[in-house]
């Protein structure tokens, strides 16, 4: 059987396309050829160096992941969705999404279609020795359409090429407009471009208008569709019969060459490097250094699009713009040690920039890695913990029992607390362990409400740190002290495993995140109290009275973006009152400003963030702000108390308090 393409090819007796320039070369291609060769060499060397810097087992995981069908599907989906179509931006800001996808997808299609055209009409030119590097790009210059022999197939490609060129040009027009009025496209702040960025940016803007110019000048020779032929007629009207087109092709080639030479030093390297980052990301490889290996792929994948600028809660004040993730990554790329360290310490670690990043660059993880380079080696001494844990872990709880003297500030002679009746019972049969955590201990109202919910639902529970416990280790990790955190994790893990519980309930999202991700508690279900209480309500064990209160729920950073818990708290609160919307919710929620993540942000700046967050929450004029984090509760309570009269009517309550009426 004859293949279809041969039948189609055989139908033409006279050739459709004639080599106008038999050598397939003209001097104007030199700038482009030099530029792209330089860029590709740079990219190749960079990729090899990067892969060599990754630890061996990670490299193996990476190569293996390229052959796992599930990962292949995910890679393809992400490469098309994130790199070309920019679906993530489309969903949030359609006009901006259109702009990005027009340039990325349009350009991709023009390159692909150009190669298909060459493959169909002059296939010998595809080989590298025959000009394959530049021929498909400047195809229209080298060929002559045999008049009267243009087939439907040829016209189809003419149309597609013109269509995608117009698509790109509309995107470029939006991009130019965005330089002057970015707010129309939904961006309040945009990134300040560096010098190399500017060179690449202006040549990028020129590439496509020049392509239109060049192709329209030759459209009567090499064919075209609605756009190029139309413009071609206009040139004929203007300049007469003979068009002198070589300068246009020179200009087009020079703009391409300039762009490719500037590319490795500008943000536009992301066009190619983000492919590598997406493959590494989907292989599940995490950076362990702020600059080397995987981190480098992340740094070069950042397109400096500036979406993290508006996302960052610190940027309610313009002076804090310089601490945004986009600039952090830029300084990492430039090895500007002093600025890197200052920026890394400022961040609240709310993870919003990561959640909203079009290619998922995990800047907070890089900041943590940067902090670790400075703080991980600082001395610490947790010998006191191992000294006490044996006695306490045996009872399944941290609370010292009556027979053991309590250690207050190192003096073992202080008063022992009254042993509560609950703790004196045998614990092994208890199925539920409640761990309040340090922060909750400073907001006793949460503990009171949680205990009252447990009692109302008839849950048999043990309060692990009623008499005080250790920190979960998450604050240490946020400060980059991973080794110290490991000690606390080890001690806490021992305590929990020896308690024999089946479920661990946490009322602090900070604890919840680390218990879930780092503790690896075999056979123990780790849940946040919002999830657990929602389950209790769903199973009918907990009765909640529906009132006519208007509630607004604040997504704590560590619970929402950190652990993906968005729906359980809302489902439960929906049973206790009417939920109203905040202007920013789910992964767009604004940090309360009290986050432990930041090391150096001062009180005044934090207050401004709390103010912005409250403004978003009170958009639907609720009478109660509900949160599920002790830090948020405290920050908001203070912010509401300190704010002006309109805010005074709003109550700030904890999730458990609302369930109890």
């Amino acid at each position: 059987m004859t293949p279809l393409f041969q039948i189609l090819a055989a139908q033409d007796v006279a050739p459709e396309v004639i080599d106008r320039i038999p050598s397939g070369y003209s001097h104007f291609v030199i700038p482009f050829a030099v530029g792209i060769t330089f860029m590709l060499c740079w990219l190749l060397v960079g990729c090899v160096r990067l892969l060599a810097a990754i630890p061996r087992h990670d490299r193996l995981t990476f190569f293996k992941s390229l052959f796992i069908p599930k990962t292949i599907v995910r890679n393809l989906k992400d490469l098309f969705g994130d790199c070309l179509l920019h679906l993530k931006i489309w969903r949030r800001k359609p006009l901006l999404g259109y702009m990005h996808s027009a340039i990325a997808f349009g350009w991709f299609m023009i390159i692909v279609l150009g190669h298909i055209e060459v493959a169909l009409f002059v296939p010998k030119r595809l080989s590298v020795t025959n000009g394959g590097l530049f021929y498909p790009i400047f195809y229209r210059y080298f060929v002559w359409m045999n008049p009267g022999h243009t087939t439907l197939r040829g016209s189809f490609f003419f149309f597609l090429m013109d269509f995608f060129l117009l698509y790109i040009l509309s995107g470029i027009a939006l991009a130019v407009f965005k330089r002057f009025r970015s707010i129309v496209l939904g961006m309040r702040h945009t990134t300040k471009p560096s010098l190399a960025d500017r060179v690449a940016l202006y040549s990028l803007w020129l590439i496509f208008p020049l392509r239109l110019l060049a192709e329209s000048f030759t459209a009567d020779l090499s064919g075209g569709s609605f756009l190029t032929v139309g413009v071609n007629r206009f040139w004929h009207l203007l300049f007469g019969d003979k068009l002198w087109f070589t300068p246009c092709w020179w200009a087009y080639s020079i703009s391409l060459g300039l762009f490719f030479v500037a590319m490795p030093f500008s943000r536009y390297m992301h066009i190619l490097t983000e492919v590598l980052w997406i493959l590494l990301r989907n292989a599940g490889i995490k950076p362990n250094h702020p600059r080397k290996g995987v981190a480098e792929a992340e740094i070069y994948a950042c397109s400096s699009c500036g979406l993290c600028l508006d996302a960052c809660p610190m940027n309610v004040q313009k002076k804090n713009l310089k601490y945004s993730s986009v600039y952090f990554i830029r300084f990492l790329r430039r090895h500007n040690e002093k600025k890197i360290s200052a920026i890394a310490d400022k961040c609240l670690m709310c993870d919003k920039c990561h959640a909203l990043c079009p290619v998922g660059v995990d800047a907070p993880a890089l900041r943590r890695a940067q902090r670790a380079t400075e703080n991980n080696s600082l001395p610490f001494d947790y010998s006191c913990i191992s000294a006490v844990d044996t006695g306490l872990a045996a009872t399944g709880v941290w609370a010292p029992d009556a027979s053991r003297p309590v250690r207050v500030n190192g003096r073992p002679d202080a008063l022992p607390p009254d042993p509560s009746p609950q703790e004196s019972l045998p614990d092994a049969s208890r199925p539920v362990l409640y761990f309040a955590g340090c922060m909750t201990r400073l907001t006793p109202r949460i503990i009171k409400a949680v205990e009252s919910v447990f009692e109302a639902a008839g849950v048999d529970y043990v309060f692990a740190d009623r008499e005080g416990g250790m920190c979960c280790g998450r604050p240490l990790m946020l400060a980059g002290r991973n080794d110290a955190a490991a000690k606390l994790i080890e001690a806490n893990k021992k305590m929990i495993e020896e308690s024999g519980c089946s479920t661990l309930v946490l009322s602090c999202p900070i604890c919840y995140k680390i218990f879930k991700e780092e503790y690896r508690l075999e056979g123990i279900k780790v849940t946040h109290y919002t999830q657990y209480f929602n389950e209790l309500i769903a199973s009918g064990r907990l009765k909640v009275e529906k009132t006519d209160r208007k509630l607004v729920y604040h997504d704590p950073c560590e619970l929402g973006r950190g652990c993906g818990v968005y729906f359980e708290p809302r489902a439960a609160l929906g049973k206790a009152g009417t939920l109203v919307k905040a202007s920013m919710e789910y992964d767009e929620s604004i940090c309360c400003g009290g986050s432990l993540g930041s090391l150096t942000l001062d009180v005044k700046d934090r207050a401004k963030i709390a103010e912005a967050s409250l403004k978003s929450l009170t958009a639907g004029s609720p009478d109660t702000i509900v949160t599920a984090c002790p830090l948020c509760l405290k920050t908001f309570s203070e912010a509401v108390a300190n704010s002006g009269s309109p805010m005074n009517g709003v109550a700030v309550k904890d999730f458990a308090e609302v369930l109890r009426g």
Partner: protein
Amino acid sequence: MVDFGFGLVPSSRINLDLFDREKYDKLTAIEPDARICISCGSCTAVCTAGQFAHTSLREALDDILNANPDKALESLRSCQLCGKCAMVCPRGINTRHLILSIIKVYSGE
């Protein structure tokens, strides 16, 4: 010298000549909040690590001013950076950064 049986308790003796101005300036440069502490002791009262071992930011700051940085480091070595002290500080001191900075500046070399 004749011993009259009187004397200062050695541990309470403060020799301000030993005060390291250079290091203190370095500390206040990276964390200016070191200067605004009023030694109220709220941080120490709520300290998580304080349940297990002697831990006190208030004492650490006093010890630094009293030219006893080793004792200051000892008061902070069990710190778990949980941040409760920052939540209760009436002066709004960035306690976690202050603690890290003290350890960084005084445990160097």
